[in-house]
Each structure stands twice: as structure tokens, then as C-alpha cells.
């Protein structure tokens, strides 16, 4: 996206570093010669492949170099496309090689794959007269089995330390073990956030398209955008998720113990929120056992700043599977549904101008007969630069003593127009951004109780409009808006 295919590497380097010494005429001629030879070889190979695309093939033998790192059943499953010889043509063969490479990459067990084809010395009887018998060699280059990262970040009055340990392909079937920990502090002696996570994941039943994650975690974070409190979560999540190109499913079972503890306002953040009845009644331990199903369709060209494609995501959570406490108020029991839709469309053919439209919504229905309030960790919150621009962080919706308390119904939308910044290169990552946001967050007793849904619930959303500059970095998107 950022480079044109016609741009040569040498040209680009010379643009970046114009002070570099000019190459001699002989060197230039040698480079041109090399380029011509490569181009000729490429064209020749392409013409052979095109001419023989429908030629029958038969893989007589498949040698796998590096197979000692994998279990047999796992290898068989990943190599399955190459083990089918029926009606195999050259075109099919190349597709199958791609499929095998994709299989291995999805299981995160190899860093690269090399494939070598030779014609066999002896032709098999089952091979058609015009067919070719092949001797194939597959070289699997495994990922590093063990990696560890440790580090600290120190800033002005704050700092954090992290440790990440990865042990990959433990038993030879793509089993990975990840330990991740991060502790941060905003003042000396105070821990504002800590995360400990242990994840054991593997391809489900050796299938590269499905992954099973078993995660144990303990996180602790300080919430200071409302009445200051600590949220501590300890639990297990078991998740099966698909890894297809467009449509994906995710099934999770979550069993977590949650603790909410009131904390004194920190000296670094002078928030104005005083204690209210809601947070007081929420303090303490509670247990959530839930089943979550998510469906996702994503055809966007880029998840950070898409210029074309569609995203649709729907997630349904049913909580209250296992009652662990004798007090029913401590067992979360609800059904929660959330959806997100995003449409990205080019306005000009050269990808310079495009728009994004997104719409989100959600509703939680409390299933508890004794407890009429939802846990504050389960509620929806709306507002903030990453959510609804122009509003305070989680600042929309019901409040008590000036502090946001969240809600059980919300909708929000955004229409953004991205335009090319004049006098910048065509592939510039900067865009002019104009947007309109809208959204509403409510606490409603029962969705079906409201006669006039539009009048009582949808009408009068909070709206904000503005413009600014957006920068698409490979890992994140930065916005400066007014």
C-alpha cells in the first residue's frame, strides 16, 4: 500500500539517502544485467507453469526435512493437501503447497517453509501417459522453541516492568505455553496495575483452522475515571476459536472471581468523584461463570484504518452457569448481547479518499430474581477518545454523585471521512479526518416494557462533530481532533 510495484528498491534508497556516493557505470551495468536475467527467468518459469497448468501430476514421494520436531498425527493433518493425489494438476499442486504453508503458519510452529520438486526417475503405472511423477521435498524451518522478554519502562513518576516467556511446540503438535506478567505503578510504593497470565494453547484436534486456548489469569487495575476503586479478577477462560479468512466463530467458557475494593483517591489524579451508594454496594467479591459465543465477519483491508471492506461482529454472553456463592447476589446472572458493524468504502479509485461508518449496540438483561443491579464490571460504558470522540472517558449515561455508573443498554455510531492531505505523497499515512459521533447509554429495566421504543430510548442521542489529522502507524492509529 505504501509502495508502488514499479518503484525499484535502489531508487527508493537513493531518495532516502541522497548523499550516498554515486555508483560506477560498470556497477550499474551489472545490476541492469542481473535484473534482465532475473526477469527473463521469471517470465520463462511463468510461461512453463501456464502451459502445463492442467498437466496431470502425481506425487510419488514426499520427504519432510525437520519432521523430527512434530508428531506424526499433527504432520499428517497439516500435510493433508499434499497427500491427496487424485486428479492432481500442476495448478492444484501449487495451490496445495500454499495451503500446507498456511496450515503450518496458522499453528505458529514454523517461521518458514521451503519446497523442492524433482521429476521421478521411474514412472508409476497409475500415472497417466502425459502425466509427471514428482519427488517432493519439504523443508520446515521451526520457530524458536523458547523465547523470553524482560524489561522495564521508567517515566516521570511512573514505571512498569514486564516479563514474557514463550515455550512453543512443546509436545510436537503446536502446543504453546505463554507466561505474561506486567506490573506498573504511578507512584513509588503503589501498584496501580498488575497482570499475570498463563496461556496454554494448541490447534484443536490438530486442525489448523481451530485453536483451543486455556488461560489462567490474575489482573488488578486501578479505576480512576469514576469513584476510585480497584478491580481484581482471577479466573480461567477456555476458548475455542476459528482462524478462517472471513467468517470466524469463538466459543468461550469463563469462570472468574471478581473483587471490587474502594481505594483512596491517588495523589496523581485529582478526580472529583465522591463515594456513592452504587459503588459501596458493589464492593466485595462476586463470581461469574459464563458462556460466550462470538461471530465475526471481517473483509476489511486494514483493521486500523480500513479503506474498503465490512466488519460485523456479534457477541452473546450467558452468565450464571455455576452458582459458587450461597448468596445469589454474588453470582452474576444475565444475558448480554453486543454487536458492531463497520463499513469502509473508497470514494476515489486511488485510495486517497474514503469513508468509514460504524454502528455499535448492546443490551444486558438481568436474569437474577433477587439482585436488581448488575455488577459494575459487566455494565456498558460509553464515551472517550477511543469510543465516542468529544466526550469524557466513559462520561455518557447515568451518573450518581457526578460519577458514571454505566448502563445496560447502549448504541453508538460514527461517520468518518478521510481525505488526502494536500502536497503530501500519495502513499502518505496522514489523512484529514472529519467525523460525526453519536451515542446513548441508558439503564432500562426491561426492553419490552417500553411502548414507544424510539421516543423513550433511541431519541436524543449525544452528538459530537469535529475534524483533525489521523496517522496510520503499523501498530496503532493516532488522531488529533478538534
Amino acid at each position, binding site marked *: 500500500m505504501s509502495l508502488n510495484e514499479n518503484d525499484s528498491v535502489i531508487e527508493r534508497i537513493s531518495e532516502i539517502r541522497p548523499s550516498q556516493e554515486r555508483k560506477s557505470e560498470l556497477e550499474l551495468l551489472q545490476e541492469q544485467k542481473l535484473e534482465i536475467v532475473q526477469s527473463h527467468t521469471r517470465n520463462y518459469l511463468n510461461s512453463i507453469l501456464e502451459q502445463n497448468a492442467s498437466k496431470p501430476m502425481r506425487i510419488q514421494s514426499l520427504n519432510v526435512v525437520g519432521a523430527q520436531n512434530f508428531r506424526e498425527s499433527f504432520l499428517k493433518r497439516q500435510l493433508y493437501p499434499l497427500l491427496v493425489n487424485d486428479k492432481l494438476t500442476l495448478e492444484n499442486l501449487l495451490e496445495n503447497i500454499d495451503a500446507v504453508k498456511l496450515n503450518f503458519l496458522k499453528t505458529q510452529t514454523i517461521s518458514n517453509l521451503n519446497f523442492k520438486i524433482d521429476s521421478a526417475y521411474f514412472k508409476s503405472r497409475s500415472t497417466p501417459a502425459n502425466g509427471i511423477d514428482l519427488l517432493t521435498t519439504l523443508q520446515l524451518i521451526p520457530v524458536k522453541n523458547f523465547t523470553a522478554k524482560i524489561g522495564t519502562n521508567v517515566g516521570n513518576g511512573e514505571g512498569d516492568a514486564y516479563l514474557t516467556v514463550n515455550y512453543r511446540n512443546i509436545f510436537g503438535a503446536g502446543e504453546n505455553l505463554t507466561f505474561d506478567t506486567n506490573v506498573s505503578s504511578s507512584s513509588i510504593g503503589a501498584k496501580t496495575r498488575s497482570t499475570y497470565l498463563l496461556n496454554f494453547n494448541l490447534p484443536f484436534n490438530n486442525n489448523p483452522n481451530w485453536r483451543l486456548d486455556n488461560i489462567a489469569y490474575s489482573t488488578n487495575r486501578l479505576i480512576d475515571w469514576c469513584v476510585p476503586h480497584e478491580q481484581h479478577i482471577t479466573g480461567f477462560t477456555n476458548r475455542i476459536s476459528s482462524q478462517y479468512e472471513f467468517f470466524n466463530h469463538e466459543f468461550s467458557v469463563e469462570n472468574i*472471581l471478581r*473483587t*471490587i*475494593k*474502594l*481505594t*483512596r483517591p491517588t495523589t496523581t489524579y485529582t478526580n472529583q468523584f*465522591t*463515594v*456513592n*451508594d*452504587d459503588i*459501596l*454496594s458493589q*464492593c*466485595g*467479591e462476586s*463470581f461469574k461463570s459464563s458462556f460466550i459465543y462470538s461471530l465475526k465477519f471481517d473483509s476489511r483491508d486494514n483493521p486500523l484504518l480500513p479503506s474498503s471492506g465490512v466488519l460485523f461482529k456479534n457477541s452473546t454472553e450467558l452468565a450464571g452457569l455455576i*452458582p*459458587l*456463592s*450461597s*448468596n445469589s*447476589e*454474588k453470582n452474576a446472572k444475565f444475558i448480554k448481547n453486543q454487536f458492531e458493524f463497520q463499513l469502509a468504502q473508497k470514494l476515489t479509485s486511488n485510495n486517497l479518499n474514503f469513508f468509514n461508518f460504524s454502528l455499535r449496540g448492546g443490551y444486558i438483561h438481568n436474569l437474577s430474581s*433477587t*439482585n*436488581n*443491579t448488575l455488577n459494575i464490571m459487566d455494565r456498558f460504558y460509553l464515551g472517550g477518545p477511543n469510543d465516542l470522540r*468529544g466526550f*469524557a472517558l466513559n*462520561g455518557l*449515561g*447515568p*451518573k*450518581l*454523585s*457526578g460519577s458514571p*455508573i454505566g*448502563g445496560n443498554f447502549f448504541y453508538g455510531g460514527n461517520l468518518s471521512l478521510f481525505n488526502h492531505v494536500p502536497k503530501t505523497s500519495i502513499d502518505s499515512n496522514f489523512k484529514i479526518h472529519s467525523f460525526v459521533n453519536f451515542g446513548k447509554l*441508558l*439503564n432500562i*429495566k426491561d426492553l419490552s416494557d417500553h411502548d414507544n421504543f424510539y421516543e423513550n430510548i433511541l431519541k436524543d442521542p449525544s452528538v*459530537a462533530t*469535529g475534524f483533525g489529522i489521523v496517522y496510520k502507524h503499523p501498530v496503532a492509529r493516532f488522531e488529533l481532533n*478538534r
Partner: protein
Amino acid sequence: MASISSSSSSSSSSIWRVPEPIKAVFDTFPLKTYSANKKSDLTLFPQNTTNKFELIKKDQDQSQFSSQGNFQLGVYNVSKYVKDPNVLIPTDPICLSTLLIINLRNGLLLPKVKFPEGDNGNIKNNNFITILSYHASYDGELPLLIEDNSGKNLQKSIKSTSLINDLNLTRCTDNKEFFKCQVVDSILYDCWVITVLYELSDLQKLKIYTDLLNDKENSMVLDTLTLNDLLASTLITRFSFNIRNENLASYWSNNNLIKNLVYRRSLLAKIEMEKNSIFRKTLEILEIFEQELAKSNFFLEENNKELPSILDCKIAGLVYCILQWCEGSKLYAMINTLPNLKSHCYRCIDKCI
């Protein structure tokens, strides 16, 4: 001088001056910024009223002090009063004595299970007790006094257990009462703590210190999992128990697991000594109190109106909880032999019914 300043200002304005078109745009937008609506909308806030119990006012003539402002007292749990099952009473002795002191000073009655109006959720008088988790307190200790600060809009002030106790102690009529209160808060409280830690079952502990319902006959996984944290956070530090009984506190603290394992034998011997010392002192003190009560209904009678004093409330709260929860324990056996203290405790509580 004047020329220098004028040239400097003109150069700064030329460099830093915002171009007119940009200034015009930023002056125009946002068209209007709406401030947050600070008024709370209670219709949008589903209130949890199941853990709140209203404190009804006594007849105004009988009360010595009038209630100023609204408050709620956060307690661990409540149970039915043994003499009147329609009345609810806090399960922890400090919470109970604090509630008795507040009620007597403000002319309030103990909360009822069923209100005469028959509507528990319809709280008209905004003074009530609330069952809270110990996590609702900054230092993990209850009771907690939450008062509406009438001077500042929407503000609530929170008074911690130690602050409430300090304020109560300032109301002691003389030094004698003050020191007796200190004895109750130290030696008698220590005895209550070791009785809870060593002689009560997990279910009893949960019934006193969590919102486990009293009619439930067994706890469940979550309740039992969190019990040790609760005891270490709330009982061990309250009223400086950990300073007076270093070995006991160390044993029950979560931070000394390895140390406790290594020095387990010597630590247990020291703990036994500490426990024996506390029981011995408790018996001596209770016998002194018993003798004092043989002469009068209350330790001190304020203004000759036969109203319990701070000391009366503290002792009554403790004695009632021992009788209610500690049956079969060493402390219960002690109290059972002291009839004056038993009748005194019911006399004090009955003043708030």
C-alpha cells in the same frame, strides 16, 4: 526602553500569531460545549435496597439529641434479635455497640425486619444501616459511617472505624469511663477475636462477617475461599489487635506464610501463651464489671435519665455477640456465669427498641 519592548512584542506576535483562518475556525468550533449534568437521575439507577434497613425515629420527646443530616452505618451483617425476631441487630460487637451509641444519641430505634408500612424498599427516613463488604472500607474495617455532607452538594463523608471510635471516646463523661472503654476495646476485643479465630466454625464466622444469610445452613465455595482474606484484613488490624498480639497477628496474616511454616512450632507456643494471657485478663475484667453492675442498672447514668453510656453500649455489644454466636466457647462459659452482665446487655439493647 519603550522602543525595545515594542520591537520585542511585534517580533513575538509575528512568529507566534495564529493565522487568521485557523483562528477563525478554532473560535467557531465547537459551536457549543455542554457541561455534564451533575444532577443524579435516580430513576436510571437501580438501587439495591435488599441490604438496607431503615432506622426509625423514636418519639421526638424521648430523644435527647436530634438527628442532624442523613447517614448510613455500614456493617458486616445483621441477624434477628433473640428477644424480638422482628428486630435486626448487627452481628459484630463493634458494629453493634457503634449502632447503639448512634441510636441513643440520635433518638433512633433498631431496624425492623418488616416495616409497619409493609414496604421495605420505601425508605422515608434517610438514616439506615447497610450491609457492606469489608472491601467498601479503605482500611478493610467496618463499621463505616457514611454521612451526607449537607454543606457541599452531592458530597458524602466517610468516617472509618477508628475515627468513629475516637469520636465516641471524646464523649466519655470522665477519665474513668474513658479508660474503661480502652480496656473493652483492647482486652475484651482481643478475647473476642481469638474466640472467633480459634473456636468458631467457618460457617459461624461467615454468618458474622459476611452477608451470608442466616437461614443458610452451609456456605459455598466462594464464601469459604474468601474467608481467610477477610479475617486477615478486618479482624487482625482493627483496634490495633496486631500491635498488642504480634504472634497471633503474624500467624493469621497472609504476608508471612513462609515464615509461619519455618517457625511454626515456636510460633504456636508463643500464640498459646498470648491466648492464655488474654483469657486470664478478660476473666478478671469481666468480674470487676459484674460487681459494678450489682449496684446499678448501668455503669454511668447520663443526666439521671437511665440512659446507657458509651461504656454501657460497648460492653453490651460485646456481651450480646458472645451470647449469640460463641456458644460452646471458653468466653461464652465465662459470660454465662455473670448474670448481671447478661441482663445489662439486654437492658441496653431494649433501650433502642
